[in-house]
């Protein structure tokens, strides 16, 4: 058969559907019949109920009437009014229900006037009671035909009810029959259809299951790792045939892929070993780097401390240089004062010199005067000599003149002596003056020397100040550069830390990589094992 499995299955299902429809229709029809039958049953019950209610309405009226008649209270008339008001509608209802039944209709027609009669009678009695009282009413009841009417009504209603009961029984039996029919249909039909469907199902499954089992077996063997088997082609063209062909293709594909995977796995294994060695090397390298970094950090710390020390020293130097500068400033001031003092002395010396020069000049003048006095004395002396000569030439007459000449000579001599004394004193004064001049000169020289020395001292102090200022500058520069050094060291330290951090992270990453690689390696091994499970 060239039917596809799908067609076969559809056919099976179609058959099942047909059977179901058949059963469904049957059930539906029978159920409908049952329903209508039960409706008739209900109908009869309704009629019965209606009849009962009519009767009860009449009874209610009667009760009410009686109550009123007995008690005379209007309130006891309530059932009476109720019954009375509901009789006619109910009667109408009844009529409507039994309209298909001739007998019953006839009976209903009989009842109506009776009811009317009864009601009228009751009303009458009520009126009597109202107006005339109990005794009259009682008399009326006894005398009247009310009871008989009521009995007639009751009889008719009973008939009606019996009739209806009979109908009920009939209808019930009809329902029973219908029910039986339905039951048997179902009871017989289901097993038959079950058998038919079973047979169909069985054949289909056989058609489908056997090859499927074969395929499953092959799949099972593949699952167990045996890729060597093949499915024998059955030459079928349906889905099963297609499945088997596809399965064969799949087996071939799997085989090829396995081989490829195996190749790939080998490559992975070798590559991961290579990478492992590389990472091991990197790990070693980073360990070395870490060691070098810690060394560098220690060295940096040492340098830092050294530069701090040098900075401190430079600060000290700066301080002491500042002090030196101050001291040298004081020294310079002192030197300046000294120079000023010395200049003062020099001025005094100059004044002294001036005075001495004045003295000298005066003594020069005195000397001049002395010279002239001496000259005078000389001349006087000469004069005296000449006078003596003349006196001598004059002889005797000149003796008096000779005396005079002698006196003149004496005078001249005295003045000469005097001048000599003065000269001597002048000489002494001159000597003293010279000594003073010498002393002044020496003083001047000393002053000059002092000035020079002070100048030298001043120079030295200035040089010292300069040097100390330079020293301060240098010290400041050293401090600054030490600070920079410190900052640099700090930066280096931080950089080292960063490097350390990075190194550690690298280390961690390396470890992770190693782990990953190891995993990969294991995975590769596992893959290899998996792949090698399959027999090709």
């Amino acid at each position, binding site marked *: 058969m060239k039917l596809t499995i799908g067609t076969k299955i559809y056919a099976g299902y179609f058959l099942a559907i047909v059977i179901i429809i058949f059963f469904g229709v049957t059930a539906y029809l029978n159920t409908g019949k049952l329903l209508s039958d039960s409706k008739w049953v209900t109908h009869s019950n309704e009629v019965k109920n209606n009849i009962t209610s009519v009767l009860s309405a009449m009874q209610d009226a009667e009760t009410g009437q009686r109550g009123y008649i007995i008690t005379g209270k209007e309130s006891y008339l309530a059932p009476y009014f109720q019954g009375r008001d509901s009789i006619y509608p109910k009667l109408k209802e009844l009529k409507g229900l039994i309209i298909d039944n001739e007998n019953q209709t006839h009976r209903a027609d009989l009842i109506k006037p009776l009811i009317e009669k009864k009601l009228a009678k009751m009303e009458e009695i009520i009126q009597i009671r109202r107006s005339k009282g109990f005794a009259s009413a009682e008399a009326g009841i006894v005398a009247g035909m009310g009871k008989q009417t009521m009995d007639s009504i009751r009889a008719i209603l009973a008939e009606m009810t019996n009739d209806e009961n009979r109908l009920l029984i009939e209808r019930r039996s009809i329902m029973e029959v219908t029910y039986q029919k339905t039951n048997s249909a179902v009871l017989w039909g289901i097993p038959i259809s079950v058998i038919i469907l079973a047979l169909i199902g069985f054949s289909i499954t056989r058609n489908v299951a056997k090859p499927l089992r074969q395929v499953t077996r092959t799949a099972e063997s593949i699952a167990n790792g045996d890729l060597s088997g093949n499915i024998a082609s059955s030459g079928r063209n349906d889905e099963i045939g297609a499945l088997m062909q596809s399965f064969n293709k799949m087996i071939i594909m799997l085989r090829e892929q396995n081989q490829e995977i195996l190749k790939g796995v080998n490559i992975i294994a070798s590559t991961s070993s290579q990478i492992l060695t590389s990472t091991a090397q990197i790990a070693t390298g980073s360990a070395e780097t870490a060691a070098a970094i810690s060394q560098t950090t220690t060295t940096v710390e040492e340098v830092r401390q050294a530069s701090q020390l040098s900075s401190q020293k430079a600060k000290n130097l700066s301080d002491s240089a500042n002090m030196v500068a101050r001291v040298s400033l004081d020294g310079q001031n002192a030197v300046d004062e000294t120079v000023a003092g010395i200049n003062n002395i020099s001025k005094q010396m100059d004044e002294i010199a001036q005075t001495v020069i004045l003295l000298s000049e005066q003594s020069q003048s005195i000397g001049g005067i002395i010279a002239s006095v001496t000259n005078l004395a000389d001349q006087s*002396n*000469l004069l005296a000599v*000449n006078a003596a000569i003349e006196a001598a030439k004059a002889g005797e007459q000149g003796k008096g003149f000779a005396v005079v000449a002698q006196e003149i000579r004496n005078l001249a001599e005295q003045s000469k002596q005097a001048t000599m004394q003065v000269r001597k004193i002048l000489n002494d004064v001159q000597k003293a003056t010279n000594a003073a001049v010498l002393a002044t000169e020496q003083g001047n020289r000393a002053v000059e020397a002092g000035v020079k020395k002070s100048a030298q001292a001043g120079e030295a102090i200035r040089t010292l100040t300069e040097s100390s200022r330079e020293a301060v500058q240098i010290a400041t520069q050293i401090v600054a550069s030490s600070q920079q050094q410190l900052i640099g060291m700090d930066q280096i330290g931080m950089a080292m830390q960063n490097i350390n951090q990075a190194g550690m992270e690298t280390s961690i990453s390396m470890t992770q990589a190693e782990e990953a690689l190891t995993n990969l390696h294991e995975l590769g091994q596992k893959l290899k094992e998996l792949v090698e499970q399959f027999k090709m």
Partner: protein
Amino acid sequence: MAIEPEQKRDTSTITEIIEFALAAESYGIESAFVREVCTLKDFTPLPGVPSFILGIVNVHGQILPVLNLNIFFNLPDRGLGELNKVIILCDDQMEFGILADEVNGTKAIYREEILHVPLTITGIGEKYLKGVTKDHMIILSAESLLSDKNIVVNEEVNQ
């Protein structure tokens, strides 16, 4: 104040001499031949005269030669240094002045005090010396000076 003149022991032996200093030696010369003593002022040197003639001076309008005894007596010449006095010697024939450092005045001495002296003491020729006193004053002979032929200059200027 007046000084009593020296007691006359023997007026005939007293000579008045003019005492003067020359080249650190004290000399004396008879005042009889001394006309005047004056200071040396504005002497005019003469060319073509012996070296002992200093030059000529104008004394009271009279032109007189001046001799430098240092040179004349061949004493070590000290230049004109202190020679600032001129003693004018004069006699009947000759009149000239001689240089002196100082003229100390007149002195009356006895002839006996004039002692003869050996030649070796001074370089002055014997004929010009009269003697030496005990005060080491060399008494010069004015007459011999005045009559010395060497003093007369007769040179003529070459024409």
